[in-house]
Every structure is written in C-alpha cells, then in structure tokens.
C-alpha cells in the first residue's frame, strides 16, 4: 500500500492498484488491514486485489454485478434477456468456471453466483441449469440462500445454536460486523454444522450492504496460521514433516500449541502422508478417537462393535446381550448403518465392555471407514443378481481401520433396486447382471447428495481395487473434515476418473499405498481390552484430605 513516494501510504478509492481503482468499501478495508500490517512492521499481509460485487438500488431497479462480467478472449457467455419482463442475466465462464456476471431486474441469485465465483469450482455439471439460479438445482437439502430476505426476524437461521435472523441482523448493526467469521464469533450462527452458511452470508450482504466483505478465497486453515489446507499438505509431503511440532515450526505457526481445530488436521496430514513414520499424537485427536467410543451428551459413551457387512451370529448377539446386562447399559439401538449401538456406557467400563464383547472396533467414532451397508443379495433374495453381502464383507475387511479426512460410508446392493441405498454413500456399489457399478461422493447427511457414476466393472477384485484407489486419492488429497462429496466437487469428477479409472498404473499405485498404510494397523479395542492406554479410563479416587 506504499505509493511511489515511500513516505506515503494510501488506501481506498484514491488508489490505482495494479491498474484498478476500487470504488467500494470492502476493498478499502482489506487494503487498510494490509497497510496497518506494514506500519506495524508485522510484514505478513499482502494485498493482491479484491473480487468485488455490487448490488445497486436505482429507484425500483435491481442491479447486481460481480467479477469480470465483460468477458472477452477465451471466455464464454450465457445470457438470458427478457426486455419486456424487465429481466436480464449474463454469466461469464472460463474453463467451466464462473468468472463474472450481471443480473438486472431479479437479483436474488446474486449471493449464489458470487459464492460460485469465489469458490472457483467447476460448474460443468450444473451448466445447463446454472442460469436459472440455485432454487432450480434440485437442492433436496436446506433450500437456503435466497430465503433470507423473506424471513422474519424471529425465524431461526441456525438450527444448531438456535440463532434467529433478528439476532444476526442486530449483531451486524450493533457491532459493525463485515465478515462471516465475525458473525460466527459474535452470534455463533453457522459455527457448528455450517449448513446455514449461505443464509448467513446473504443476511450479511443485505444488512451490511456494500460494506460486506466476502470470506477470502484463500482460506487459512484456522486463526493459528495464514496457510491453507492445500499448502500445509504440500509442505508436509515435500519437506517430510513427521511431527506436529516440526510442522508448526516449519510453517511458522502463530500459536505455540495450535488450537482444537488445526491440531487434529495436522495430525491427520502427518499420518496419512507418512504412514508408519509419523507418530500419532492422541492429545491432538478429538475425544472420540482418543477413547475409541462416541461421547454422548451426558458424558457417557456409546459402543458400536463391527459386524462385517451388517451380518452377525447367535454367538455375537449372546455376548452383546450379556454385556448389556453386566454393565447395565441403558439403551441398545439399531443404527442407520446396520449395526448395534450400545448407549450410555461409562468411560471406565469401556475396556471391560470391549474385552467381553470380543468383537473388533466399529470405528463409529472416528474419521475413518464406518460401515459397509449391504442388502441380502443373490444368496437369498429372489431379485438379487450379485452376492452383495459377500462383496460388502470383502470391502469392509479390506478397508476397516482406514482413517480419512472425514467419516467414510460404503454400501453394496445386489441389484438395481438398490436396497442398501448405494446412491447416498461415499462409495456405493450396485450389482447388475454383468458385474458391478461404482458410484462415488454421495452423502445422506446435512444435505442429501446423490452419488455420481464412476465406472462399471466385471469382478469383485476390480471393485476392491477401484474403491481402494478412490479412497486413497481422497486420503491423500482431501482436506481435513472434507467429505468425499466436497472433495470431488473441488477437484472435479473428471480428475477422479483420470486418476482412478483411466490411469491403470496410477490406480494400482494408489491401491498399493492404501494397503501399505493399513498393513499392521491394530484393532484399537483389542489393544485396550488387553490393557494398553489404561490410565485414561481410570478415574483417580480422591484420597482423604491431608490435614494442614
């Protein structure tokens, strides 16, 4: 922000920055931050220009513009023009990515396009419907984003933290908030599951008007660093970083011991990049992965033993029943992933429960392979054309103990009736007469996402290799807490196909690396049932007070 005369700094609309003069408030704030940074000799900020959007109100006319909306060499334009109806829309694309747009007359989709633009993700798959806005994308989840304006102040925006629209608007006005992060910190809205983020951004845009500064495109991992997930992953690989302390030192972390958000991510990046070399740091894992059970609202834990492919036996059921009686476990519940959940186990009872169950860990508590759900398949079902239960068991035995950026769920159906719901899983396999179809990146959670077709295969061995290679790609290149649906959306399905389907040597290598990582990985329950790590399960009983 230094001008040609080094004694003079300048920000705002009087500045010509790399050929651009910004007439808006948001870039001014960004400039001022960088400037302050320099004046304080802090030296970490850099201003590289802003992507801006404006929403103008010209008496009765709505106009929205963002990014490069003039187009030109190498760009494509999609336009919609209805002069009589008073609506005009133009979207400018380059390489299947939205780079700019103008909306006239109807601007409700402005926030949505702006978000696409900032994310810079491929719109190839939604291109044919892009022009008609977000509401037309078959969004089966929270039909967010364009609702904000029509909401009344007492309507709830954030379901996790119970925050109403009025509270957010008031906070924006009273505290002068400009960014999503500030709104999260002050009101807690959108700070848990994140599904209302678009709505909150829209409220921000409406309430703060032109002052709204969008979340930066370059997103730092957390407040402890300026580095992005991608940069951290790259550094871990290229510089062979093996411990959290090394990584923090090398990447010049601002906090000495990180925070509860970056430490688990770092721990995962180290372990997934350097299996058998990097050392696990249990204290940088969320309690569930430290205690190998799911913490519940009252501080007790739940235990879900592994049942391969959802199949069990009289012996296992008897042991489960005995454990439930012996440890007075209050609730037993069948889960959505075809397992039995024992709820309300005291932490100190966990090792005993595991010992008595004599079943492997179900990893229902971990960012790891959870379950492979199966339908009955050709062994019993009159419609089944493939043995889905067996295929599911093979997949589960091959992939269990596999940690990943987030939880991973699979399903195998024995015919296209798809009773195992393969269409909403990270990897879904569907048996057909001539073999198996593989679908990836589905999700049944916060927002239902249908899995996309990856490849059709003949044999079970091929299914194991392709599924393994896809998951290894996700393990190596996914960002922590990014589900496969978000990962595939970010890198593009074409890229995944290139790596997993077209490149046979590369696929084989990915699969090999997965097998190497899983080789010798222990069953955490068996280890702890045998006494490992016992201190965390044993409370200290306070001795009699020492007289003073």
């Amino acid at each position, binding site marked *: 922000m230094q001008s040609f005369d080094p004694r003079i700094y300048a920000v705002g609309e009087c500045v010509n920055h790399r050929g651009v003069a910004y007439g808006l408030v948001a870039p001014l704030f960004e400039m001022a931050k960088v400037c302050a940074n320099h004046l304080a000799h802090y030296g970490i900020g850099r201003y590289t220009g802003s992507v801006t959007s404006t929403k103008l109100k010209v008496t009765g006319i709505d106009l929205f513009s963002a990014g490069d909306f003039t187009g030109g060499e190498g760009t494509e334009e999609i336009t919609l023009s209805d002069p009589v109806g008073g609506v005009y829309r133009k979207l400018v694309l380059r390489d299947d990515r939205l780079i700019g747009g103008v909306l006239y007359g109807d601007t409700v989709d402005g926030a949505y396009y702006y978000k696409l633009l900032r994310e810079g993700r491929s719109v190839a798959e939604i291109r044919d419907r892009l022009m008609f806005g977000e509401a037309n994308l078959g969004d089966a989840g929270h039909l967010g984003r364009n609702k904000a304006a029509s909401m009344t102040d007492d309507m709830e925006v954030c379901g996790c933290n119970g925050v109403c629209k009025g509270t957010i608007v008031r906070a924006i006005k009273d505290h002068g908030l400009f960014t999503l992060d500030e709104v999260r*910190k*002050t*009101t*807690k809205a959108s700070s*848990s599951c994140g599904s209302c983020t678009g709505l909150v951004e829209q409220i921000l845009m409406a309430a703060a008007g032109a002052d709204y500064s969008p979340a930066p495109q370059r997103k730092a991992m957390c407040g402890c660093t300026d580095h992005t997930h991608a940069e951290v992953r790259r550094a871990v690989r290229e510089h062979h970083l093996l411990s959290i302390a090394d990584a923090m030192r090398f990447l010049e972390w601002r*906090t*000495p*011991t*990180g*925070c*509860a958000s970056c*430490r*688990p991510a770092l721990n995962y990046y180290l372990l997934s990049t350097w299996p058998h070399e990097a050392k696990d740091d*249990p*204290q*940088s*894992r*969320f*309690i569930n992965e*430290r*205690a190998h059970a799911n*913490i519940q*609202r*009252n*501080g007790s834990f739940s235990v879900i033993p592994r049942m391969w492919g959802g199949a069990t036996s009289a012996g296992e059921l008897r042991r489960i029943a005995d454990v439930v009686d012996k440890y007075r476990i209050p609730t037993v519940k069948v889960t959505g992933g075809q397992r039995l959940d024992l709820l309300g186990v005291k932490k100190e009872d966990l090792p005993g429960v595991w010992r008595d169950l004599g079943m492997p860990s179900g990893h229902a508590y971990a960012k790891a392979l959870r379950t492979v759900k199966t339908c009955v398949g050709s062994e019993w079902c009159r419609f089944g054309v493939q043995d889905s239960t067996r295929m599911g068991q093979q997949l589960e035995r091959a992939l269990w103990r596999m940690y990943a950026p987030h939880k991973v769920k699979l399903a195998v159906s024995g015919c296209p009736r798809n009773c195992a719901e393969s269409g909403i899983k990270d990897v879904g396999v569907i048996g057909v007469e001539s073999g198996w179809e593989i679908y990836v990146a589905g999700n049944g959670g916060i927002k239902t996402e249908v899995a996309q077709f990856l490849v059709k295969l003949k044999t079970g061995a091929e299914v194991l290799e392709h599924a393994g290679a896809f998951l290894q790609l996700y393990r190596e290149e996914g960002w922590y807490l990014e589900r496969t649906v978000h990962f595939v959306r970010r890198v593009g399905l074409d890229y995944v196909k290139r790596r997993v389907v077209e490149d046979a040597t590369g696929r084989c290598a990915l699969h090999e690396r997965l097998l190497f990582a899983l080789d010798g990985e222990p069953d955490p329950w068996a280890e702890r049932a045998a006494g490992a790590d016992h*201190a*965390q399960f044993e*409370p*200290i*009983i*306070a*001795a*009699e*007070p*020492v007289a*003073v």
Partner: protein
Amino acid sequence: MERWIRVCRPEDIPRQGARVVQISGGADVAVFRTASDRIFAITDRCPHKGGPLSQGIVFGERVACPLHNWSVELDSGCASAPDEGCVRTFPVKVEAGEVMVDLARAPGTVRDALR
C-alpha cells in the same frame, strides 16, 4: 480451612491432557497438564451444558469442550468470549513429586460473585 488432597504424579497426566478426580459427595475435578507442564484443576463440568472438560483438546492454557467446542480458560475457569460462564477453579501445587489440589478454597466462586 484448606483441604489439600493428593492426586497423582505430574507425569501421570498426559501433556496437553487431563485426569478425572472423583470426589466423594462432590462433582468430579479435572486436573490438566499443559504443553509447558503447568497444572490446573477445575470442576469437570462445562459452563455451557455440563460437558466433561477433562475429555477436551488442550491448547495453550485452554481446553475445548468435547460437546460443543466452547473454549474454557484453565486459570480462570471462564469461557472465552463470546461465550459466558465460569466453573470453579482449585489451587494446585506440586509437593514431593505429587500434584496436590486444595478443595476448600475456590477462587472461581469469588470471581463468579464479582462478575
């Protein structure tokens, strides 16, 4: 009246971790050890909805509650802004290689009263 109890050796608490101390007739106490080996004792109940703080991730001199991720300062026992609320803190000393916690004095309650 001071009421010191012997808890464990410092090395029995994992660095950036905690141990739970059960007190007969009272709420559990969480005894934390930070990366720089400072030791703190606070009631093992999050000011938000009672989550067991001992099970959280410790960073700096704070702990992130395992239930909804509030962050609680170990020395004051208070939640970091924008969250509000405090839990009781207890004086700690290490004597003859043993961590001792004074269950009688409770600065946390005084601080609560002053708020």
